[in-house]
C-alpha cells in the first residue's frame, strides 16, 4: 500500500478454525480507504469466511481486525459500521422495496420519514424508484440485486462487503452491473471489499486483488501486477490462461534466469525472487505473448500443430513441443494474425516476445 493512505480495514494474523479444519491460515492484509478491493480464489478457499469475519458473523479464532484504527473483531455485527450485500440478496420478503432499503436507517434511530426519504434517494441511485411499493418477490433477479445494493449503501457504511453479488446474474446483466458497481464505488467513495471466484471480473473491477487458495494469501497486488508478474504457479494458472513448462534453472542473475527445457533448449526469462539455481521450476508463458512462424528464429521452439480453434476475436493454436509438452498460442483474428494459421500436422516455430516467459516455483 502506498504511504500516506488511510487503512480502512486492517487484518492482522487472522486465523479461522472450524474444529480440526483450518479455513484460514494466518491472513494479514490491509485494505486502503476508497479502494475497490477484491478477494479472489477458487471455491472453498475461505473468501466468504474472511468476509464474514469482517462483518461479524464468524468469530476469529486468533488475530485482530481493525476498522479505521478501531479494533472490531469482538463487536457483534450490529455494532460494526460495515454493510453487506449478500450473495442471495437476503431481502426481507414481507417488506416493500422502500421498507427494505430504509430498514438500516430505522435501526440506526432515524425516524420513519427520514428513512423513507433517504431510501427513496438510494432507489433513485440504482434506478428502481418506480418499484418502491413492490415486494421483493415481484422483482427480477437483477432488480433484487440492485435493491440489496441500495439497502447496504443506505446507511452510508464505511466499508461495503459484497459476497459474489453478481454470480446469480446472466452474463450480459453481469457485465452491466460490473460497470454500475464500479461507478457507484467511485461516486460514493466507499471502500468496497468484493468477493468473487471469477478472475475476469476481478481483473476488470479491482484496484487491488488478493488471490487466495486453501486458506492462504497467495498474492496481493494490482490486476496488472497479478496478471503479468504472478508470484507462483498457482496464481499464474488461476489468473488468465497460461502455458506451464517444466524446466531446470541453470543460472540466475539480477532477476534474469537462464533455464533449460527438457528438450535441452535454453531460454532466458524473468524470475520471481524465490527461485534458486539448479532447482526445478515452471516457465509460465501467456498464450497471447507467443508468436507462430515458419522460420527457426533464434529463441524459437520447434513444434507440431495439433489443432486450430477459431474463437471469434482470437485464433487459438494447440501445439506439441519436442519431447512432449503441450503449448497453446493465441493470435488475434486480424489480417496479420491470419497469416499465421497452420493446418493440423504442420510444423511451426513458436517465438516469444521479449519478457514473455516468467520463471515460477510451486
Amino acid at each position: 500500500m502506498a504511504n500516506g493512505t488511510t487503512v480502512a480495514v486492517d487484518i492482522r494474523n487472522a486465523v479461522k478454525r472450524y474444529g480440526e479444519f483450518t479455513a484460514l491460515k494466518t491472513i494479514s492484509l490491509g485494505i486502503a480507504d476508497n479502494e475497490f478491493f477484491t478477494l479472489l480464489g477458487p471455491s472453498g478457499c475461505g473468501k466468504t469466511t474472511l468476509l464474514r469475519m469482517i462483518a461479524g458473523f464468524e468469530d476469529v479464532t486468533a488475530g485482530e481486525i481493525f476498522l479505521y484504527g478501531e479494533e472490531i473483531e469482538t463487536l457483534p455485527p450490529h455494532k460494526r459500521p460495515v454493510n453487506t450485500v449478500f450473495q442471495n440478496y437476503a431481502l426481507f420478503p414481507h417488506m416493500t422495496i422502500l421498507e427494505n432499503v430504509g430498514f438500516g436507517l430505522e435501526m440506526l434511530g432515524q425516524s420513519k420519514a427520514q428513512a423513507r426519504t433517504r431510501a427513496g434517494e438510494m432507489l433513485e441511485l440504482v434506478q428502481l424508484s418506480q418499484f418502491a411499493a413492490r415486494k421483493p418477490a415481484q422483482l427480477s433477479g437483477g432488480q433484487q440485486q440492485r435493491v440489496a445494493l441500495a439497502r447496504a449503501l443506505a446507511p452510508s457504511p464505511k466499508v461495503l462487503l459484497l459476497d459474489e453479488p453478481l454470480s446469480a446474474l446472466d452474463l450480459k446483466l453481469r457485465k452491466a452491473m460490473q460497470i454500475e458497481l464500479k461507478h457507484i464505488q467511485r461516486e460514493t467513495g466507499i471502500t468496497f471489499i468484493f468477493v468473487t471466484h471469477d478472475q475476469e471480473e476481478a481483473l476488470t473491477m479491482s484496484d487491488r486483488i488478493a488471490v487466495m487458495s486453501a486458506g492462504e494469501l497467495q498474492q496481493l497486488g494490482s490486476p496488472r501486477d497479478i496478471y503479468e508478474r504472478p508470484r507462483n504457479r498457482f496464481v499464474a494458472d488461476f489468473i488468465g490462461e497460461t502455458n506451464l513448462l517444466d524446466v531446470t534453472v541453470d543460472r540466475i542473475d539480477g532477476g534474469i534466469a537462464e533455464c533449460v527445457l527438457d528438450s535441452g533448449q535454453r531460454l532466458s526469462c524473468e524470475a520471481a525472487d524465490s527461485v534458486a539455481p539448479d532447482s526445478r521450476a515452471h516457465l509460465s508463458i501467456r498464450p497471447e505473448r507467443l508468436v507462430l512462424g515458419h522460420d527457426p528464429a533464434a529463441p524459437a521452439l520447434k513444434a507440431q500443430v495439433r489443432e486450430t480453434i477459431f474463437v471469434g476475436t482470437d485464433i487459438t493454436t494447440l501445439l506439441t513441443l519436442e519431447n512432449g509438452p503441450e503449448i497453446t498460442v493465441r493470435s488475434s483474428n486480424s489480417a496479420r494474425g491470419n497469416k499465421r494459421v497452420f493446418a493440423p500436422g504442420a510444423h511451426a516455430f513458436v517465438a516469444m516476445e521479449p519478457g514473455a516467459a516468467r520463471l515460477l516455483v510451486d
Partner: protein
Amino acid sequence: MAGGAPAPGGVASQTFASARNWLLMPSWAVLLVFVAAPVAMMLVYSFLTKEFRGGVIWEFSTGAYDQFFCNRGLFGDEPCQIEWTYINIFWRSIWQAGLATVLSLLIGFPTAYFIATRSEKTRALWVFAITIPYWVNLLIRTVSMKFLLRDQGPLNDLLIGLGLTEDPLRIINTNLAVQLGLYYSYLPFMVLPIYAAVERYNFTLSEAAADLYATKWATLRRIVLPAVKPGIVAGCILVFVPSLGAFLAPDLLGGARNFMIGSLIEEQFKGNAGNWPFGAAASMILLTLVLLVLLVSATQQRRTKGAV
C-alpha cells in the same frame, strides 16, 4: 401476480381439472362421512324435542336453544330473560382456552425456536422427545397428572421436602390445575407448527438484519416473527380450539367449580340424565364460535399477505 399473459386455457387445463376432481373424490367422501354428516346430524338433533331417558322425540322444537339462552322462571311460563348459567360456562371456557393458548405460545415459541436452531441430528431427537407423552392415552395422562398434583402427591412431597412450603399447596381442583392439564395436553400442537415454520426460515435474513444494525430483539420482532407468523397462527388455533372443547382436564383436574363447555356437552349425552337436543345445541353454539375464530384469523392472514 403479473397480469398480461393470457391464462393457458384449452384442452390441457380442462383434462387437468377433471383429473384433479377425480383424484380428490376420496377426500371429499371422507369429509362428507366424517365431517358434514355428523354436523348435519347435530344440527337436526338440536332442533328436536328431548326424551326424558336420553334420546329424542322426532318433533321440531327450539326448546334446546331457548333453554340455553332464556330464563323463563321456575315453571317456564315467564317471558325470556337472559340465562347466564351457560353463557358464563362458555365465557369461562373461552377465557381458560385463551389463557392456555397465550401461555402455550410463550412457552412454545422459545422451545420451537430452540429445537429448530439445533443441528439436524439433535433436532430430530428433540421433536421425538416432544411427542413421547403422546404415546400414552390422554385419559391416562390426565389421571396421572391428578396423582402428581394431589395434596399428598409427589409434587407437594417435593415442595415440602425442599422446605418451600409447610402445608401442601392446593393445586388440584383449581384453575391452575386445569391450565397445567391443558398445556400438558396441547403444548406440542403449539410447538410443532412453529418449529416447522422456524425450520423453513432463512436465517440469512437474521444476519442481514444484524448487518443493518438491528439488535437481537429488533430482529426477532421485525424479521423473524412476521416470517413465522403462519406457524404461530396455526399453533394458536390448534391449541385454542381443542382447549375450548376439552373435558378431561377440567373434569379430572378442575373439579366442579371449573366446569367447562366440553364437560357440559359431555354430560348431556351420558347415561339417562342427559338431554340430547340441549347437548347438540350447545355443540352447535361452540362450533359457531370456533368458526368465527377461524374466520377472523383467516381474514387477518389474508390482509398481512397483502399484494404478494
